[in-house]
């Protein structure tokens, strides 16, 4: 029987690790609500706008008499009703987020577009290729398979310079294609192996039964294979999204035009130019750009964990 509180020392130790792990995020979140002048006085405590908003809300709820006084950026003092003052302070509180959103929205849009295009390409090509490699023996299949396998051993740095020159010669510098084409064409061999090992594990009886029922090649692929491999597709998707999201060097060298920046390269350029003048807005940008992956993780924790560990086992 497990007694409650038996592991208190274990919890103490784990908390001692967990708190510093979360600390930086709390720091960023908290300071994303501060103005830059406020940050000169310190990074700790509740942001001023939040305090002011809370006090206005409290006074409005209690129905306190008298106006709330608001000091504007231009050092004017305004007397407003509590609810108006509350709205004013909330606007102030979210100002960093509004500013950050206008800057990172194009980056997010570009990232989303690239992620979708790469994922679609890899899923279609990857499943079809792995399907053929796994289920349709043909002379030379092993050769093709080992050819794919061998390309995995080259580190990305080795192909970096010629890939850049190739993209340049194709006239694809500063375009979405510069990010999408190499990823779909060569960057995702891993997906084939995850798919192939999963397809290898499926029972041949299923395919035979479907064939007896008159299913053609496309039917087998579309109505049998894809529905069965939903979990493994999710895993490959996650690996893909994480890869695109974290890829910094490649987008940084092929797309120097700000119009084609994805989140990683965009945030870097933004930080380099913005960090001195308005850190609060930068922090807000960090928070905004972290939300999509956190949401995805919350929705697909299982697939995420499998994606993380699939390289280490049996893959």
């Amino acid at each position, binding site marked *: 029987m497990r007694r409650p509180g038996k592991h208190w020392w274990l919890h103490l130790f784990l908390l001692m690790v967990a708190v510093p792990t979360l600390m930086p995020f709390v720091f960023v979140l908290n300071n994303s609500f501060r103005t830059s002048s406020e940050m000169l006085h310190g990074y700790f405590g509740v942001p001023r706008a939040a305090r002011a908003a809370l006090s206005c809300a409290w006074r409005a709820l209690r129905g306190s008499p008298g106006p709330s006084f608001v000091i504007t950026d231009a050092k004017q003092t305004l007397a407003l009703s509590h609810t108006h003052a509350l709205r004013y302070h909330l606007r102030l509180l979210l100002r960093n987020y509004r500013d950050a959103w206008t800057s990172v929205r194009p980056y997010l849009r570009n990232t989303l577009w690239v992620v979708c295009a790469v994922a679609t390409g890899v899923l279609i090509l990857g499943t079809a290729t792995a399907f053929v490699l796994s289920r349709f023996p043909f002379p030379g299949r092993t050769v093709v398979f080992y050819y794919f396998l061998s390309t995995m051993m080259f580190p990305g740095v080795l192909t970096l310079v010629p890939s850049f020159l190739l993209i340049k010669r194709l006239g694809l510098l500063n375009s979405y294609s510069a990010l999408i084409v190499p990823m779909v*064409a060569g960057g995702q061999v891993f997906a084939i192996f995850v798919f192939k090992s999963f397809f290898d594990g499926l029972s041949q009886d299923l395919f035979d039964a479907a064939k007896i029922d008159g299913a053609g090649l496309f039917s087998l692929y579309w109505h049998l294979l894809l529905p069965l491999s939903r979990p493994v597709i999710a895993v490959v998707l996650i690996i893909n999204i994480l890869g695109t999201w974290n890829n910094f060097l490649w987008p940084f060298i092929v797309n120097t035009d700000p119009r084609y920046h994805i989140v990683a390269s965009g945030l870097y350029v933004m930080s380099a130019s913005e960090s001195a003048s308005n850190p609060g807005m930068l922090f807000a940008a960090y928070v905004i750009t972290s939300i999509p992956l956190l949401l995805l993780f919350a929705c697909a924790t299982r697939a995420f*964990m499998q994606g993380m560990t699939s*390289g280490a086992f049996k893959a």
Partner: protein
Amino acid sequence: MTGRTWRKVRNGLLFTLPWTVGLLGFIVYPVVASVYHSFCDYSVLRPAVWIGLGNYVDLLQDEVFWIALWNTVVFAVVALPLGIVTAIGLALLLNTKVRGVVVYRTIFFIPSLVPMVTLAMLWMWIFNGRYGILNYVLNGVMRWLHLPWEAPGWLLDPHWAKPALILMGLWGCGHAVVIFLAGLQDIPETLYEAAEIDGANRWQKTWHVTLPMLSPVIYFNLIMGIIGTFQVFAVPYIMTGGGPGRATLFYTMAIFQFAFEDLRMGYASAMAVILFLIIVGLTWLATRVSRGHVHYGGL
């Protein structure tokens, strides 16, 4: 019959064609070109000129190359084992059927969910010598204990820049914790039962059952870690740009500088080829050493 075989081959090749061509274009060709360029003087602006082993000879006499190699090796030798040991320790703690494992696991995992660039920026704020929260806390503690020391300037201090990056890497080891935890949960319960019947205590069970059974995962992480360390770019590039001095100039950053700042593509290619040879050598070495130490029985 031969017609059918031919059709099979044709269909098979047809279906695998997109990848065959894609890999040819974006892996095989670049690898071959890299090797070829490494024997050339090539600056993009002018056509490549064959100079034989010139780049390699120059590289071996180039201080920058050795500094970058040294920094990377130090990082691999210190940060990697430290991270793996910490991750295994945390995974072992989380594997004790303690309550709230899912919560802790999620917390440790969060750093892997935040874009790398964001993490780098975030840690620049933490490490900031004058305004950073790390030094705020450290100096506070020192004053409280009446110690005469002052916290270092971290990223601006040539002696402390590398430790700072190592510390940051340690903080983000939650990804490995998740991998090790999955490995631990794959170890069959029967092995522990058998060990208990033989009278093994907790320590003996960890040392003689858990770690050997986990060894393939540890081995895999080590190899991937070494390969990864040689390709570290984004975090040090953003945080220090290789400085102060060249204290945090890592291998891939040096390649980047040679290729895209100095436009010495041939020189950079030679360095990349050496990297490939190093990785192949290390992997071969690790495979040999691992024989007899890595147990694949459970997988």
